[in-house]
């Protein structure tokens, strides 16, 4: 006897969207989330909680990752407790979607067929997707309505085909600097576009419209305007009476039978006691690294090397987001009174993006896949800004009056403006997740060992994009503009590990994101993506999870 029609592991954008769809379709759903359940009332603009202590992510002493990086011919492994380089992102109900900035871009048709469009790249495992943009378009559109995407459609050469003329919500309030960006782009011959946001500009159901505190990305949302999986989907799913969310439930194994069918999941509850729950269908959506880790740890009679891992594909082709950040200083004293007062405004969003180089056609680089640029004000966490003044340009500590003067200059006298470049992180043979042989988490389970193998091509594209972002920053009057591009992965933009495809020897999931050979197991986070596109992942995760949920609903 099955307790639930569907047991969903993880409550972020993937798990939340599946739970919402199935509950609305009359199915009985259980969502297991390892973290606590916070609501709008629990989220404050708290500098320590958001950015300086592990409040929404595990204490690294309890749960860590081991990161491998190239060291000569070998690999050097470092535990994240040792490095402080944290790979957790929002282990709470709603997952890391609680803390996103909600820069929402659709993928474009070209992202579904990189291999056909641009040919192979040596050292990279670029493949076409087994579905096309047209398969996902209705779901991108549905997300605009259900999660709530605000924006304004402007025609441009890279505009993706749309089945509706415009966004269901008008753009959020704009910062005075948005006009500076437009003017600068006009001069440079670039096309400045409104940036869609998963942020409500008008109330929706119980969710309030954005209140423009100026503290959005990396802070939990207190108004409900941010389209987190929790605020936008899970609250409504729970309200049907058919969806239960169990926080503090750390799933450590999926149990499968001799045929390879999943029968149950086991998890540790808040007291550390083992629990087991069964269902008809199981959905894994723990964010890419932990999804692969859970599947690898879930050995069974048919799958001695991990569930769905007959061909050694689970954990392979892990990807992040390539690119970088260009940034410059807006020095109030040098801007003049009017412009300085505009630059000081806190609250509204810059909401500008450039898509001119989604495909780069350059005499030197040839025709290659590019990406997008997004503009935003420097991160508002003022403690971090102060800390960066602790050292002078030579790296020596500064204290006393000198330190105080530099704080006055840096915090009172200026503001940072950023331009982020998003590009494809090419999948490579060595970019992968495995189980660590020695290091365990606090429950005694092997932690994920992540091998980072960035492809040099990513840097070329990142620099190309970020340099153009820097030109805009210089043109609008920013000082000391720097182009920051590295091959370090942003841990909050992670995908792959269980790529979908038609061939079970080279992919983990079928085109419906059902595991090859395991017909009651689906993966609904970003793990399915064989290539990542050059935009943040959340909208694609939502859209694909709704598509996957339709396949599940047809099966249970």
């Amino acid at each position, binding site marked *: 006897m099955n307790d639930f029609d569907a047991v969903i592991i993880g409550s972020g954008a993937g798990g939340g969207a599946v739970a919402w769809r199935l509950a609305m379709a009359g199915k009985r759903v259980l969502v297991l989330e390892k973290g*606590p*359940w*916070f609501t709008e009332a629990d989220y*404050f*603009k708290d*500098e*320590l909680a*958001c950015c*300086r*202590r592990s*409040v929404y992510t595990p204490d*690294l002493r309890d749960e*860590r990752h081991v990161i491998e990086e190239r060291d000569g011919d070998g690999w050097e492994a*470092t535990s994240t*407790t040792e*490095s*402080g*380089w944290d790979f957790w*992102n929002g282990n709470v109900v709603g997952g890391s979607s609680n803390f996103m*900035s909600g*820069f929402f871009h659709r993928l474009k048709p070209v992202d579904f067929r990189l291999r056909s469009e641009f040919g192979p790249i040596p050292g990279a495992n670029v493949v076409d997707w087994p579905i096309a943009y047209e398969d996902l378009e209705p779901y991108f559109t549905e997300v605009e*309505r*259900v999660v709530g995407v605000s924006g304004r459609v402007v025609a441009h050469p890279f505009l993706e085909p749309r089945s509706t003329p415009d966004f269901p919500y008008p753009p959020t309030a704009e910062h005075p600097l948005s006009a500076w960006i437009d003017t600068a782009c006009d001069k440079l011959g670039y096309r400045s576009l409104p940036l869609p946001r998963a942020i*409500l500009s008008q109330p929706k*159901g119980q969710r309030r419209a954005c209140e423009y*505190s*100026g503290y959005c*990305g*990396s*802070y939990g949302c207190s108004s409900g305007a941010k389209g987190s999986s929790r605020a936008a989907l899970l*609250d*409504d799913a*729970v*309200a*049907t*009476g058919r969806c239960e*969310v*169990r*926080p*503090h439930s750390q799933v450590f194994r999926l149990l499968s039978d001799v045929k390879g069918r999943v029968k149950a999941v086991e998890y540790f509850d808040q007291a550390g006691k083992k629990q087991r729950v069964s269902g008809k269908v199981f959905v894994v959506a723990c964010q890419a690294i932990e999804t692969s880790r859970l599947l690898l740890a879930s050995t069974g009679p048919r799958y001695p090397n991990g569930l769905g891992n007959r061909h050694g594909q689970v954990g392979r082709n892990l990807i992040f987001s390539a*690119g970088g*950040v260009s940034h410059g200083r807006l020095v109030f004293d040098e801007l003049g009174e009017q412009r300085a007062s505009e630059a000081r405004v806190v609250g509204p969003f810059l909401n500008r993006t450039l898509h001119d180089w989604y495909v780069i056609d350059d005499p030197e680089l040839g025709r290659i896949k590019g990406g997008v640029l*997004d503009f935003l004000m420097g991160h*508002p966490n*003022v*403690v*971090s800004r102060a800390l960066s003044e*602790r050292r002078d340009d030579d790296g020596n*500590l500064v*204290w006393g*009056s000198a*330190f*105080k003067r530099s704080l*006055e200059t840096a915090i*009172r006298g200026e503001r940072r403006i950023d331009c*982020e470049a998003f590009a494809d992180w090419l999948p490579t043979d060595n970019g992968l997740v495995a189980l660590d042989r020695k290091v365990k988490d606090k429950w005694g389970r092997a932690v994920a060992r992540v091998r980072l193998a960035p492809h040099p091509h990513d840097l070329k594209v990142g620099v190309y994009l970020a340099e153009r972002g820097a030109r805009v920053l210089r043109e609008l009057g920013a000082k000391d503009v720097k182009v920051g591009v*590295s091959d370090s992965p942003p841990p*909050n*933009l992670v995908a792959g590990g269980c790529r979908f495809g038609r061939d079970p020897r080279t992919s983990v999931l079928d085109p419906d994101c059902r595991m090859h050979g395991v017909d009651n197991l689906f993966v609904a986070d970003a793990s399915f993506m064989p290539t990542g596109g050059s935009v*943040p992942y959340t909208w694609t995760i939502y859209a694909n999870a709704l598509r996957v949920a339709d396949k599940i609903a047809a099966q249970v």
Partner: protein
Amino acid sequence: MSSDATVAEIPPSPPLEKGGAKPGGLGEWHQALLSRRTFLLASAGGLAALFAPVGTLAATANPWPVLAAVQNHLFPSELGSPGAREIKALSYLQGVMGDLRGDRDEQRFLLKGVDWLEDLSRQRHQISFIDLDPIRREQVLREVANSRPGENWLSTLLLYICEALLTDPVYGGNPDGIGWAWLGHQPGFPRPTRALQRIVGCGDEGTASNTAMRFASSPHPTSGVDGA
């Protein structure tokens, strides 16, 4: 000894949209790691006086006046701008060092640093750091900063001064937003009404009942998906 401390020298960077990335590429990161390992070695007590060649190391009976003196030197009170005293940096630091969920290695390291500083001060000037004049205090602290553990110690103290200066008054520093007012910083709203220890703490006790309640009576009546 646990080697699992959160690193002092590499505070968790704010998770920007792309901000989880390491700041400066591999070289810088491994440099920081090296510093981290030295730091742990130091706090393990494996080496005696790491700020300078050894004198006779004795535990300082009351470390707080020394820490207060160091804080006041690092972040002096001035006409028109608050110093360590005004931002309650010492009581903030006491909160950090008494935090049961905090980093035990770091807490020990901060205390041990007081002994090392006192040792160095007595070697150089035969008196406690507290009794030095500002010029000698500066000389001694510059010498401290020349050793890697000493640099790490001062950098950690500056870290908690910055937190006392700019985090919400609910955490014990920045009384009445004195630090924000000085630097013209506008905090976000809603501001925290309780320290995060309480928020974290609810994960231990409060949430079980909270969970049951939320499942039984959902916060939202069934709302249409079209909304607005």
